[in-house]
């Protein structure tokens, strides 16, 4: 629940549908098409006849920028060139900013000949928003950051009566186009609960029309309920894709679906399937502290996952969550017979019932007892909160019954004591 990236395609479509309300001169061509691995390209061309009649631009739409510099931008191309570009790039694995991933989604739109490239973006701060504008847009904007003007707009400002002109550089002939455009864009930003919007660059055509060329945007997804008529339609909500190269694994998808079903929170990110250290920590704050401590003490490479469960999940959901982790920890090869560690951690809960959630975890442990023993898994537990004594006792009994080594710590040990103990164990300082 927070600021979420959206596809460039969706961002452009949202702006196209909303901007004319505030800036009627905005006449967007609305010629946008996504080509992904499933698209029948010939059918796409048939559906979008402009692809044949106009020169086009093709670029990946997977939440990363600097596509020109990465040679992933096809400009001023004809239809055949477009097809070639799509065929040769779709499904191609490449590395973008140290992340490897496959190109899966391309955006096609008409090529707009232009001379000047402008920059505009809007960001949010505590007491207001900031409009950033520059004449020097495009790929060199970062190098020319000193030429960007930053105009703070206090929260709840009526932008229509706001003196934007007085705070902008001399816009010359373009003043009558740029000022209403930026004001309109700001209204869309506010109205649609954008959290970030960057158009870099946009062009002004010969007939004085503004065309956004590259767009990057984040929406505040908590505002979804306010936008059922645009991007928050519950039947067909806008997509919040994962970053490039971060397609969710089966296990992550399963937990995500579980999370969406309940009022509780269940999160899982797999970091290293071969890792020897896995965590199942209760609470958003505590899970961060556990992960930190493992990294701070130098064991980040061993860490299998990041995740958390909180908000008093049901026993059943906790069991599914625990089972997913146990499957992961026991699936990874363990050729050297090295010990593996599962840390079932957490702070002192306000209201999550320790006994009930532990009953779910224990049920998963018991069902997988043989697997856990074969994989040489040692479990560390630390937890407090309602029914903590019964919960910890349940864990102790489970250790005795199954023969799985389970070390248990209560509220009188530091919250991250299991991490310290695990490291002692790894270093052989029992």
């Amino acid at each position, binding site marked *: *629940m*927070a*600021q979420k*990236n959206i596809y460039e395609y969706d961002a452009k479509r949202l702006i196209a549908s909303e901007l004319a309300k505030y800036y009627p001169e905005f006449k967007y061509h609305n010629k946008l098409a996504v080509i992904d691995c499933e698209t029948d390209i010939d059918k796409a061309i048939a559906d979008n006849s402009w692809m044949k009649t106009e020169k086009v631009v093709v670029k990946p739409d997977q939440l990363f920028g600097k596509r020109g510099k990465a040679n992933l931008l096809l400009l001023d191309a004809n239809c055949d060139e477009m097809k070639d570009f799509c065929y040769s790039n779709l499904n191609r694995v490449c590395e973008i900013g140290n*992340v490897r991933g496959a190109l899966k989604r391309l955006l096609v739109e008409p090529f707009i000949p232009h001379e000047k490239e402008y920059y505009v973006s809007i960001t*949010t701060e*505590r*007491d*207001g928003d900031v409009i950033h504008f520059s004449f020097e847009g495009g790929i060199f904007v970062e190098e020319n950051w000193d030429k960007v003007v930053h105009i703070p707009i*206090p*929260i*709840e400002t009526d932008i229509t009566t706001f003196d934007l002109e007085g705070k902008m550089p001399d816009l010359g002939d373009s003043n009558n186009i740029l000022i209403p455009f930026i004001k309109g864009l700001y209204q869309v930003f*506010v109205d649609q*609960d954008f*959290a970030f919007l960057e158009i870099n660059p946009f062009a002004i055509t010969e007939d004085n029309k503004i065309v956004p060329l590259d767009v990057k945007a984040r929406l*505040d997804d*908590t*505002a979804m*309920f*306010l936008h059922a008529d645009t991007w928050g339609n519950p039947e067909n909500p806008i997509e919040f894709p994962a*970053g490039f190269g*971060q397609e969710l694994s089966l296990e992550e998808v399963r937990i995500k679906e579980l999370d969406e079903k309940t009022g509780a929170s269940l*999160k899982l*990110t797999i*970091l290293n399937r071969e890792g020897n250290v896995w965590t199942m920590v*209760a*609470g*958003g*704050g*505590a*899970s*961060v*502290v556990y*992960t*930190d*401590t*493992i*990294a*701070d*003490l130098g064991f*980040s490479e061993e*860490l299998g996952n*990041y995740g*958390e469960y*909180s908000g008093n999940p049901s026993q059943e959901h906790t069991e599914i969550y625990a089972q997913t982790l146990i499957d992961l920890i026991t699936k990874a090869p363990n050729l050297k017979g090295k010990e593996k560690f599962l840390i079932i951690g957490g*702070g*002192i*809960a*306000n*209201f999550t019932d320790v006994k009930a959630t532990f009953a779910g975890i224990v049920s998963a442990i018991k069902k997988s007892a043989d697997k856990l023993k074969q994989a040489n898994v040692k479990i560390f537990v630390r937890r*407090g*909160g*309602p029914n903590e004594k019964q919960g910890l006792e349940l864990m102790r009994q489970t250790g005795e019954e199954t023969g799985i080594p389970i070390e248990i710590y209560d*509220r*009188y040990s*530091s*919250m*991250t*004591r299991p991490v*310290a103990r695990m490291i002692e164990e790894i270093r052989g300082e029992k």
Partner: protein
Amino acid sequence: MESYELFNSDTQAIIYGFQANPVQRMLDFDYICKRKKPSVAAMIRPTQEAAIAYHKVFWGSKEIVIPIYKTLQMAVKKHPSADVMINFASFRSAYDTSKEALETDTIRVVVIIAEGVPERQSRILLKIAEERNKVIIGPATVGGIKAGAFKIANTAGTLENILLSKLYRPGSVGFVSKSGGLSNEMNFMIAQTTDGVYESIAIGGDRYPGSRLIDHLLRYEANPNIKMLVCLGEIGGTEEYEIVDTLKNGKITKPIAIWVTGTAAKILPKGLQFGHAGAMAGSSKETAEAKNQALKEAGALVPESYEDFDKLIKETYEKLVQEGKIKPAKEEEPPKIPTDFNEAVRLGLVRRPTDVVVTVSDDRGDVPTFAGVGLDNIVRENRSIGYVIGLLWFKRELPEFAQQFIEMVIKLTADHGPAVSGAHNAIITARAGKDLMSALASGILTIGPRFGGAISDAAKYIREALQKGMNPPEFIKYMKDVVQINIPGIGHRIKSVQNPDVRVLLLKEFVFKNFKKHPHLDFALEVEKLTTSKRNNLILNVDGCIGITFLDLLENLDFTSEEIEDVIYSEALNGLFVLGRSIGMMGHIFDQKRQRAGLYRQPWDEILFSE
């Protein structure tokens, strides 16, 4: 109250939302803190119909009531000294309700519990708060606690935890964090390493919290009762740099131990939501390492990792004690809260007799049961109404012929035209504009000794005759001389031996075919032979036949004679008539209602007016 204080031990809150558990927890806290009055003045429940309702809560071992208002406006008017609103509204309505509270004259602090309040709405709220010199705690928080004085809603969990964390009396440490879960952990850790917290606030995990870490740290700095500060920051945003600046310009002079969590973000995929909504580093400045480093350089006490945080806090505290800057808080025994009855039952500490014994049905499980049989089975196996009556009336699975007999009786008694007293009364009442239940009840109320009563009376006397071993002539004489009434169930206005009642024929036919024995019917038919020899309309009528054959039914089931006595005593026979006839009476009521029939008035010419 001093400007650096949000709460004291007189503070009272208005709770937005009907929140029975948090309210009870607040009052339990109040009680062990020996507060003079409860910390909850009222609740708001916009969905209720009444302007004011009342909710019972415990204050120690006694019960008190807390008013529940329909509107905040009214609550504020009635409780002008309540200056805190704890807002349990959902993320959808948190904005409107918080705004309303901020715009009142009396509410000074608004706590927003909901997670998922849109960021722009939060920012508008904090602007209003700033303009009106008010404080917001949250959104997305459990709240906070001022030890020994005031507890927000669910903060600090169970009573046991409050006692272990010594939150019932103030210590010397001011604590603030983003995370509500960790604040509970930290309250206990601080109680273990120092004399405990003085005040502890969780500002919530959002990107734009209503009040920031620095806002609370500055309050703690100004409060002479607080001797050291502890803070837990978080990756993302630049809030902690406000603390850096404040340290640098000397506005915080008390020792401050602080740790910014999220140092592991570098090993996680970029853009991953790490814990809370606000926890995402947008730039290198927003990383946990950068913040910890900057804080350390500005003079804050920063541990190497969270694992060392407790030691650092302990050392800092002990140094302050040695320097004489802290006089450790005195330990005191807080009053005991009586165990909740349900909890005591769970623990097996108390028992209580029940008031009612019920043996026919149970609705406590997943599926209601009738005499132990699940309603789901009854429906799936397509059981008859006769079967259901057997379960609920006689606690038995009746055999097929008994089910059929009961259903036959219901059919036979379902209606007897509009003129009989039950239907007549029902029609008149319906036409007087009364509702279905009233009209039906007025019809049912006519059932008794003269209308429908022959059924149970016929059964009663024939049974008596058989029990006493009378023969038919003796019985007729007994009824005439001793009981001194006509034999119930014998005689018909129109029907006669030559013109028999088809309903009676059907009943007799069924009984002869399906019942192994039928002594009551046999006896009654002997009696009928004698009576019809006197007059041909002194036949066994349908009421009598139902009553008598019902006795035979019981004979054919596995009822003991005591059980049969119970069935008759409990008026099961009247029950059959009431059940059957209700169908017909409702038919008449619906008929009149469909026609929108007007008020019935008996015509004068049907009445003889006389002296």
